[in-house]
């Protein structure tokens, strides 16, 4: 199985990483944030040329943000999800633009909607929102109903 081989390869190469095979063509890797750049460079050398998406999850109870980097290979069809946790109070992450150039707009979007700061990404200007002055709207402590009532309800 290609997925199992990749999992073993990753665990042999990265001592702090935990990997598992979610299903056919899906491999999930969790690892500390310092090692993410090495992992992505390793995967890129293995033929994972496409960064599909970066997503962010707000684990408010644990005081952490989780960043999920989705990379996929056109040769094997495997889609790897690399997950790292960062501190929620001081959300700073290293930009992955040096490895995958198209990380730029994804990081910019995450900066806008979650407030995560990416060092090394020099254009984190607002992408979608106009004149936003509140908490980043996708954070779980942002109260959307109260905001909508305050700003959009004129009754």
């Amino acid at each position: 199985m290609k997925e199992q081989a990749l999992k073993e390869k990753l665990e042999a190469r990265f001592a702090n990483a935990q990997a598992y095979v979610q299903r056919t063509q899906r491999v999930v890797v969790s690892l500390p944030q310092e090692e993410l750049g090495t992992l992505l460079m390793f995967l890129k050398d293995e033929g994972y040329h496409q960064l599909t998406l970066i997503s962010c999850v707000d684990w408010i109870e644990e005081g952490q943000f989780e960043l999920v980097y989705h990379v996929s290979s056109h040769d094997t069809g495997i889609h790897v999800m690399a997950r790292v946790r960062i501190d929620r109070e001081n959300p700073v992450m290293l930009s992955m633009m040096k490895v995958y150039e198209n990380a730029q707009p994804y990081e910019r979007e995450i900066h806008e909607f979650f407030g995560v700061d990416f060092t090394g990404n020099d254009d984190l200007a607002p992408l979608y929102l106009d004149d936003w002055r509140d908490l980043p709207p996708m954070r779980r402590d942002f109260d959307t109903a109260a905001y909508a009532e305050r700003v959009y309800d004129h009754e």
Partner: protein
Amino acid sequence: MEKYKRGTMWATHPYKWGQKYSIWPIHFCTGCGSIEIPPTMLAPWDASRFGMGPMASPRQANMLMITGYLTTKTLKYVIRTYEQMLTPRYVVSFGSCPIDGGLYHISYNTINHLEWYLPVDVWIAGCMPRPEAFLMGVNKLMAEIDKGTADGYKRYEENRDYYRAHQEKTLGHDFMNDLKQVEWVMK
């Protein structure tokens, strides 16, 4: 407006006759309802039967179609476009989102009710309304023009403070300064 016999309007009220049969919507599409506009304008439903044709410039158009949800970003351009149109101007709201927010009732960037920001002459409910419903709305607008009740632009002039207060609360002071420039140009 006094009653007139059917068929003699071109003689008694020529300007109204012209307004009624030359509804020129500005080509401004917001949200998902805009996908219903091409078949309405083109061969399948052929809106030019009703004297309609899309216009590229707000100065030449007299109808503004709001075809779907309005984010704050889009609403700014809608208001700027509406301010640049010449009277008489009509607003047709399309779909359930401009009525009460629809799917986006609780959202961080979508307005709930269009009438708070702009005067609306005809509401078309549905998600999405079919082109038939849109053409019914156009016929309704024509009837309103006949009766003289399509007076959204007059309401906008009379209640300018009301609309301006809501626009300022949602869109902020910077945008109101931009609008002052538009007003100055239109003078």
